[in-house]
């Protein structure tokens, strides 16, 4: 099967060449500006700021009534030799939608409450901060160990209308997720 093997090798090479180009094209990805663990006497909470960006296509889709959803993933990890173990994990879902009648932007927060905003920037600024009691037991982190706070926001393509989903996986205009932001914690 030498021909099939050659075909496979060529295909792999093309994919490897295209992958970095598509990453470069995806300059609409969200960015986690900062994240930190806030300690209180009873519990820990997470504070973070995330800059969301909308590509022209995503902005147009929003204006046309397509709801856009992000999942903010928060993990407390303990570094290991081979792989990190996840001690705590949670997901905060945000949905942004435009109301044409009121000409307002609605954000459905993780708690299920909705907030209306007159401008898109106001809505994105609202989403930039975490709006949930992201609190976990203070006994989770032991003294003398190193931990990591990992946070990322992931654009949920599966909440898009069905016809858009295949395109969203291939088009850089829909690469709106951020990378993992890792914040070391030393106890």
């Amino acid at each position: 099967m030498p021909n099939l093997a050659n075909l496979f090798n060529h295909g792999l090479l093309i994919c490897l060449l295209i992958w970095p180009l598509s990453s470069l094209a995806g300059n609409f990805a969200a960015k986690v500006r900062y994240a930190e663990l806030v300690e209180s006497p009873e519990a820990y909470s997470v504070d973070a700021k995330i800059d969301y960006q909308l590509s022209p296509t995503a902005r147009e889709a929003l204006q046309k009534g397509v709801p856009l959803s992000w999942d903010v993933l928060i993990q407390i990890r303990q570094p290991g030799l081979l792989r990190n173990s996840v001690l705590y994990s949670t997901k905060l879902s945000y949905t942004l939608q435009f109301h044409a009648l009121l000409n307002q932007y609605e954000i459905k927060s993780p708690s299920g409450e909705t907030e209306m905003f007159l401008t898109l920037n106001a809505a994105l600024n609202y989403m930039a901060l975490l709006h949930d009691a992201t609190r976990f037991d203070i006994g989770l982190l032991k003294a003398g160990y190193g931990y990591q706070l990992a946070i990322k926001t992931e654009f949920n393509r599966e909440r898009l209308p069905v016809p858009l989903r295949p395109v969203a996986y291939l088009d850089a205009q829909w690469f709106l997720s951020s990378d993992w932001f890792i914040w070391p914690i030393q106890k």
Partner: protein
Amino acid sequence: MAYSKIKLPASVSIIILFGFVLLSLQLMSSATQESSQLSEMYSWLLVINTLGSIILLGLVAVNAYSLVRELKKKEAGSKLTTRMVSLFVLLALAPAAIVFYFSVQFLHQGIDSWFNVEIDRAMDDALELSQSSLAQRMNWHIKQTRQMAEKLQDKSESSLALEVGSLWPDSGAAEIAVFSNQGHILASSSANPSEILPHLPDEQIWLQLRQNKEYFAYDPGDNDEMLARIIIPIQSDRSRFLQVLYPVPVRVTDLADSIEFAFIRYQEMTFLRDSLKTSFSLILLLVLLLSMLAAIWVAFISIRNIVAPVKELVKGTQAVADGDYQQQLPVMSQDDLGFLVESFNQMTRRIARSRDETRAAGLEVENQRAYLETILANLTAGVISFDASFYIRTANQAAYRILHIPVSHFVGQTLQTLTTKHGELAEMLNTIQRLLEKADDIWEQRIVFLGPNGRQELLCRGTPLYLQNGARMGAVVVFDDVTDLIQAQKNAAWGEVARRLAHEIKNPLTPIQLSAERLQHKLSKELQDGSAEFLQRGTRTIVQQVEAMKRMVDDFSEYARPSKKQVERINLIDLIQEVLALYMQSGIVFSSSLPTGRVIVEVDPVSIRQVLHNLIKNAQEATTAQCRVEIKIAKVIRNNAAYVELGIYDNGSGLNAEQIETIFEPYVTSKAKGTGLGLAIVKKIVEEHGGVIWVDTSYNAGAGFVLQLPVFEFGNSE
């Protein structure tokens, strides 16, 4: 075997495969509906179907590659498989491609037909109408709120509560509240008594309030109702704000929601127009790909199954062509091809059986032929068979022994061609040829000829061979060398004669001799001189003749008496030189070519010395002038045995043909004196020593005799 037992039939596997393909496609089709619960699995179904297509494409590619390799190797059935697969692909692909093309066309046209300018305008107008209605209501509420704010100007904090309570019944508001610029509630009144605290503005509203001095917007309220929230400053220094929440009638809210939902839906569809086309086209393409690839793969399997018996038949035919008649093909099905394979198996079985029978018959014939050959080879009689054109077909070993011609020289030759190579046999061969050509029935003939070993007499019997239809197919000649037999008969006859002579003649001779001597003795004194002298001459003659007759009878007795040999190993050269030394004074000129070294023979020296004496005397007596005798000795190999060949040649008168025939018979002589037993005794002695003697007919300068004796050592040993 276990695997074959649990292996599913191809048809069941194919049905299961198509079931999976159809199920997957149905799931993906259902998932395209937003309302379907499967819509969440749409991406996975798309990936699964794409992977399925890739796997099927790989299977088809592997099968196609395998087929190309078989074609290159020119394997049996590969061309038929290629033709059938190509035909199937062409027949399946063409209509599927046409259906796909027109389906995509209809799909695109159908999606495009959902949108047009009128609906666009209608949707925009409806939205604008709704917005105008809400804006008008908002403007009226703003005006109403401003009037309330004027009434509340310059009111003290203690009187605010009463004033707000007086404003509420006429305003129709759901809630009226006054709060400071720090957000402290100064006074409030609500249509719902259970709500103690008013709906204070959040941070976003405060932000806009500080920027714009006023705030008015529709907010979603509880229980899916909509509220118009209006906040305006009461004092010019903006230290107090009046917030009034006006409920929007449910009917208005429902209508607005309905219009907004339709507008948003239409806008979304407009935005997804191209995506919809792409998505549906992709699904159609996947359906086509999965269906076609699955069909082509199944076609490969099915066609291979169909062609398999044909391929086996081709291999089987090749095996039969190569001579392998044991070929039995598996009957894979009970259809026409199965019947064909069964017929092929029957044919090969019959061919194998016929081949075995033919082989057995051939073996039997071969055994018979070998048996006959063995018999012929061991016959003492020579047997030669001829075809219809008198070409020799077979000859046995006895023929070689008798005629001294190798069998390989016989076969494929005619007797005429043999005469050119073997001139000494020409007369005999020509005689047999004449008899073969003339005889129509069994014939028998004694043929005498001078062969290389002297005179030979053959008893020949010929039988012409005929086919069943009477045509002549050849002849068989059986011949036996009766030379020795006839010679033995002659020797026995002469021995009997000698014995009778000794018995009947020698016995009366002694009384005759004694009577003659007594007559001489008694009467010589009584008779006168003349008569006495006559008597004396007469009796002397009688005595001399009786003596001569006695010697003759003794010679016969000697010839007839069995030999009493004292055999020992001697050097024949020494013996010859001894004999020649005796003739040194005889006047015979000897010339000899004797080998160096010894020639050891196992003989009775007295008998061999007598042989040499007899032959040399014969030469001396046959020569009138100066007698010359040449003696030659050579080594010959005959029938894988070594012999010494001794030739004695004289320059006498030689022998004619008649003499040559009878020279070794007793009482045959050309001399005036002699008993004619000399050469007969020589021949007897030589044969008693296992040798032979003959007249060298090729020598014409006189008489030449050649004798052969077994030799144990010949020359160059010392």
